[in-house]
């Protein structure tokens, strides 16, 4: 029909007209330049220097910056990774960092509070002395552990950021683990594998032939790695993406499964049932590497110890943190003591019910872990689970078969799935699928979590743990909730009285941020020390604010779990104004708090900060252990240096040693020594059965499904079911790394300067709302505002706000004010900071949406307009966050 449109005439006549025009074109009118190629541009007098973009996205992307007149004008990816598929690595945010590096929000002078409580500029001596005096007084009055420390996880910077860990350990301040505070700690890992977490580096994704992604929006949150999924597809692999909401990752997947919110665990359990029922599971794997054959006393719910069984003794030579359990050896026809010291091939019975004679003369009825598991899975027949997940049984079975029959199969377990009160149960269910299919320890197989920046990839104690260190920590949850009877974590006896924050913005970015602001306002929190390079809300509210160097202005050592390269940040340009490197700031602070610490903190002039950072770099490389000690500072100045790993081949394979060298679980969770975490899996095996009392009490000894909000919101307030019928998801945005880049002018342009709220059109219509309305998301704890976007891709029961907006852009409302740090008691069975600890369940938040009074506020219309001498009235646009 195209030819029949009215345009047909015009095409003809246009053609004729052009021909006519060309025919009569005057010779002289044709520029002579049209006859030759582009004139080569003069090469620029420019310098490109390599550094590493390493905010809290964990990307650690090698970048080169073009510097002119002491300022960065352009940034490009260094694209110098020896493994070519990693090039070019870097995203829209990192590539536009220059637009905010010297933006109006940059901190350039130390800030202190005067007697009137106003924040004023000060010189370094005054500011450091005042901060040291205040901290010393608080430490003396309330104890050093009343000083809480929040830092951006050290993988993003071991030298400068490590200096904060070192000073905390020097004085015995309480480290508030950011990993659990931010909901990054996937508790199923210590519960199942005994380690903090393990994951494939992203270049292993291309080796997978089936990738199941549960609630991880890889295309947005792992931009520099996302293409490895594409490469896997190009090599014939498939990607199946599970999410209630449609997203970029759903679009790039081969199949999108619109799973009901928080039902991923049920789906995985139904898969497990189907795999077992159809006999598709890897019995050798389950028997050899997991606790499946271990016998459990049905009466007590506890695993039977070899030392309790008549005629058996625990295998000799096992340390305190290990146990020898019992299995039934089918070859020998007898009960045997299992060894936690290795993982030998065996003939243990996977299923069955046994009468086990105990030394006390009684007989225990026992079942294997696998037997109990299969019995447990009876509730999760695909037909039953279909109703929970809103996915038909045939689809569940099909995907289960695919997962069992396609190798290597990799499960990516994302924050969208994890950050719920029962996130650990879902992780345990997914881990079960990875194990049943025998994918653990295989290149391109297994299960990975990529939430947060966590992994410590070499030994860092030489720098971060000084001589005579006092290490203590306490989860943020207890500060808000108060100590609980069953908690194992230490709690400062006088509570938290001071907060030292590095590169973080807790007054915006933490859950119940408004609660923390109140603590500052009421004076309950007596002192906040903030180190940052941007004028965040925390920086403007802090008692002492120290302007720091950005990651183009200092020497820093970075690693990431996503790739195997150690990289440096280098000083391309000087920090603006009086901003300084953190290593100098902390050295001065330590010496001014207690001059006796000088041996641990040798002083140096600010201009020697680079020299000092170089010394620490050399120390860290030298003492970093076998993964890193082959690298030299000189090599790293030139480009990326690859970490060493144990398995043969280019790519590190998690659990390769366990699967191939039969070394017991867990793997090491640095910086903790192995023996501290080994007790989490006493059998030396992957454990699906947990027999700690709290797990038995809550009936969570085996992976199971528990619905959302029942143990939290609805328990707290039964009316919440009706009042707040929507789930509240604060997803990561493509335009920010949490709040970093919120004031990047290019990113603001891409978002119309406007915080937005996403709802399904039906959900919006039920509330009489429509696209473009200025709305308020609310629950009993707080509110956040935004412009409504109707998106049929959003699940009808969900409300989405993309996190990271400073409240200055949002009518002073904070999206974190709605969220509560629920404590799941199973997370308190043990305590090891950032390994086994209460975790933030961001998504466990119910809300509702209504029209906000007054429409789009002027502050939103004006904020972020970074224009010099433009038509935006002074003080309303670029001046946000500044003192009036």
């Amino acid at each position, binding site marked *: 029909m195209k030819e029949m*449109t009215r*345009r047909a005439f*015009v095409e003809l006549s246009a053609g004729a*007209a052009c021909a006519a025009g060309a025919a009569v074109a005057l010779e002289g009118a044709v520029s002579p330049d049209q006859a030759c190629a582009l004139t080569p541009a003069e090469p620029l007098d420019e310098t490109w220097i390599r550094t590493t973009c390493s905010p809290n996205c964990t990307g650690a992307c090698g970048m080169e910056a073009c510097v002119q007149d002491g300022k960065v004008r352009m940034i490009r990816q260094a694209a110098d990774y020896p493994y070519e598929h990693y090039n070019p690595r870097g995203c829209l945010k990192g590539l536009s960092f220059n637009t905010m590096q010297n933006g109006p929000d940059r901190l350039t002078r130390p800030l202190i509070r005067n007697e009137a409580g106003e924040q004023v500029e000060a010189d370094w001596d005054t500011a450091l002395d005042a901060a040291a005096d205040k901290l010393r007084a608080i430490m003396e009055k309330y104890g050093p552990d009343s000083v809480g420390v929040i830092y951006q996880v050290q993988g993003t910077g071991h030298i400068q950021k490590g200096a904060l860990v070192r000073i905390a350990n020097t004085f015995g301040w309480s480290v508030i683990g950011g990993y659990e505070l931010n909901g990054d700690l996937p508790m199923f890992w210590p519960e199942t594998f005994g380690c903090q977490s393990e994951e494939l580096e992203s270049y292993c994704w291309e080796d997978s032939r089936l990738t199941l992604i549960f609630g991880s929006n890889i295309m947005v949150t792992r931009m520099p790695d996302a293409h490895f999924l594409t490469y896997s597809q190009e090599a014939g692999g498939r990607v199946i993406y599970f999410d209630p909401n449609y997203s970029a990752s759903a679009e790039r997947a081969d199949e999108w499964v619109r799973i009901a919110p928080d039902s991923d665990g049920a789906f995985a359990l139904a898969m497990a049932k189907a795999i077992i029922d159809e006999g598709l599971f890897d019995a050798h794997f389950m028997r050899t590497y997991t606790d499946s054959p271990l016998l459990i006393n049905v009466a007590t719910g506890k695993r039977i110890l070899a030392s309790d069984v008549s005629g058996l003794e625990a295998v000799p030579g096992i340390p305190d943190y290990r146990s020898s359990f019992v299995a039934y050896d089918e070859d020998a026809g007898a009960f045997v003591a299992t060894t936690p010291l290795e993982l030998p091939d065996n003939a243990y019975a996977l299923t069955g019910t046994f009468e086990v004679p105990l030394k006390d003369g009684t007989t225990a009825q026992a079942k294997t872990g696998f037997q109990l598991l299969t019995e447990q899975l009876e509730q999760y027949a695909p037909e039953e689970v279909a109703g929970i997940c809103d996915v038909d049984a045939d689809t569940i079975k099909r995907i289960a078969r695919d997962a069992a029959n396609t190798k290597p199969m990799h499960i990516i377990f994302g924050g969208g799935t994890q950050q719920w009160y029962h996130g650990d149960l879902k992780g345990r269910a997914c881990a079960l699928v990875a194990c049943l299919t025998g994918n653990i320890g295989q290149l391109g197989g297994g299960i990975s979590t990529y939430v947060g920046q966590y992994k410590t990839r070499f030994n860092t104690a030489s720098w971060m743990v000084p001589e005579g260190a006092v290490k203590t920590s306490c989860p943020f949850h207890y500060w808000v909730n108060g100590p609980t009877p069953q908690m194992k974590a230490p709690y400062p006896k006088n509570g938290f009285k001071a907060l030292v924050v590095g590169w973080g913005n807790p007054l915006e970015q933490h859950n119940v941020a408004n609660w923390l602001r109140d603590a500052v306002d009421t004076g309950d929190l007596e002192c906040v020390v903030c180190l940052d390079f941007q004028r965040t809300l925390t920086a403007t509210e802090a008692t002492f604010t120290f302007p720091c160097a950005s990651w183009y202005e200092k020497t820093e050592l970075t690693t990431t779990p996503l790739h195997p390269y150690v990289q440096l940040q280098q000083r391309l340009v000087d920090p603006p104004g009086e901003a300084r490197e953190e290593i100098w700031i902390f050295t001065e602070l330590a010496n001014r708090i207690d001059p006796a610490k000088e041996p641990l903190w040798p002083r140096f002039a600010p201009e020697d900060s680079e020299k000092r950072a170089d010394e620490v770099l050399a120390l860290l490389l030298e003492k970093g252990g076998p993964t890193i000690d082959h690298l030299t500072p000189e090599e790293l100045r030139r480009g990326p240096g690859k970490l060493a790993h144990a398995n043969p081949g280019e790519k590190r394979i998690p659990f390769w040693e366990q699967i191939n060298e039969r070394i017991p679980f867990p793997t090491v969770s640095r910086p903790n020594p192995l023996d501290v975490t080994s007790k989490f899996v006493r059998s030396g095996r992957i454990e699906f059965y947990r027999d700690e009392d709290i797990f038995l009490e809550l009936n969570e000894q085996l992976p199971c499904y528990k619905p959302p909000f029942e143990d939290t919101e609805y328990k707290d307030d039964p009316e919440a079911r009706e009042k707040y019928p929507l789930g509240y998801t604060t997803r990561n945005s493509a335009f920010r790394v949490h709040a970093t880049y919120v004031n990047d002018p290019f990113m603001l*342009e*891409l978002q119309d300067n406007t915080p937005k709220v996403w709802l399904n059109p039906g959900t919006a219509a039920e509330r009489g709302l429509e696209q473009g309305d200025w709305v308020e998301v609310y629950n009993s704890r707080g509110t956040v505002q935004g412009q409504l976007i109707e998106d049929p891709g959003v699940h009808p029961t969900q409300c989405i706000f993309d996190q990271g907006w400073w409240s200055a852009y949002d009518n002073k409302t904070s999206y974190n004010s709605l969220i509560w740090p629920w404590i799941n008691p199973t997370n308190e069975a043990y305590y090891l900071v950032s390994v086994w600890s209460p975790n933030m369940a961001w998504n466990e938040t119910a809300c509702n949406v209504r029209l906000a009074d007054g429409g789009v506020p002027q502050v939103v219309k004006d904020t972020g*307009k970074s224009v010099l001498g433009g038509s935006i009235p002074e003080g309303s646009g670029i001046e946000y966050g500044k003192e009036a």
Partner: protein
Amino acid sequence: MERTARIVGIAGGALLVLGAIGWALQLTGGLLSGSGMTNIFLWGLMIALFAFMVGFGAGSQIIASVIYVTEKEELYPLARVGAAVGLACVAAAGAAILADLGAVRNVMWMLTGLNLASPLAWDMIALTAFIVASVIQLVMIARKSGSARVWAGIAGACAVALQIVEGLLFSLQSAHAWWATPIMPVDFLAVALVSGSALLLLIACCAKPGSALAPERGLRWLSWFCAIAVAVHLALALADLCLVALENTPVSGGVLSAIGSQLPLYLCELALPAAGMIILFACAKSEKTASKLAAAVLVIIGIFAHRLMLLYPAYNAPSLYLTLSGTDAVTGPYPISTGRYLDWDATFALGTAYLPAPVECLAALLPFGVALLGSVVILWAMERLGQDRERTAAHPA
């Protein structure tokens, strides 16, 4: 007449000054500071006025030429005014185009680097040709030269060409379905006839009854002419609308919805000239000057609405609809960067509501000023030329 001319001249001069102030404001603050235009809505009030003015200019000339060529002598005085007003209106259109340029500083390239394939080049040539022919014609008329009739014919032909070129300027832009139609150049001609006849009718009705400018038979003829021209124009416009409605593509759907969002304006464009036409048909034979005057005013307002509606359905109907790759399924129109992020918080959009900004409206007085003042000055000059001629004839050297 002297007094009327003076009033019109002063009014024109005042508008010219105000418009010039508006333009100056735009030039100093940038076009943006005085415009509601965007990278989506690229041409605004000034271009609507350009099309409006050029229609009156060409139309008046064509009618004047018809009068001269067919030797309707009782209408010569009116034709003389028509030809003069025609030149002034075309000059006003030229001024409108100049005032709409973003970088008028580079305008010399229109002479030294003209791209003859560009309809805008044709436009400039047609405009220049018209002005030259018109001026010669006016001189001949003023001098009561025998060749006036020939030159009026030539000027009329130039006016027809000019109006067709204006039509092509729009209709060759295949990116805008609302314009890209064979009807467009034809309708431009029809609109010129409507505009010219309505304007002359207006002038005649304003003149003293029975005066040279308002001969009875001539008025009747002009009424018929205008009514028929309106009928032709409306038929063309409705035919165009039908074609759009029948096209049934995503692009044509976009045009219809853009028309829908400007429905009151679109109804004005159709209903006002239609009402004028009915009045004219009804009282063409009678001497109801007031009715004819009202009809002329209705038609002129309707044509102004028509010129605004030249823009809305063109720019607010997206041109690029994409399909899901590898399929025929249409996903929708593709967003465009508005260029107005700093003012509106809308970096990208599918369409932008266009409302002329105050400074833009002020600058829009400029072409009106040129047209009014220009008409008076041209007529005065013709008068002087005629007197000189007579004087020379009376007192040969």
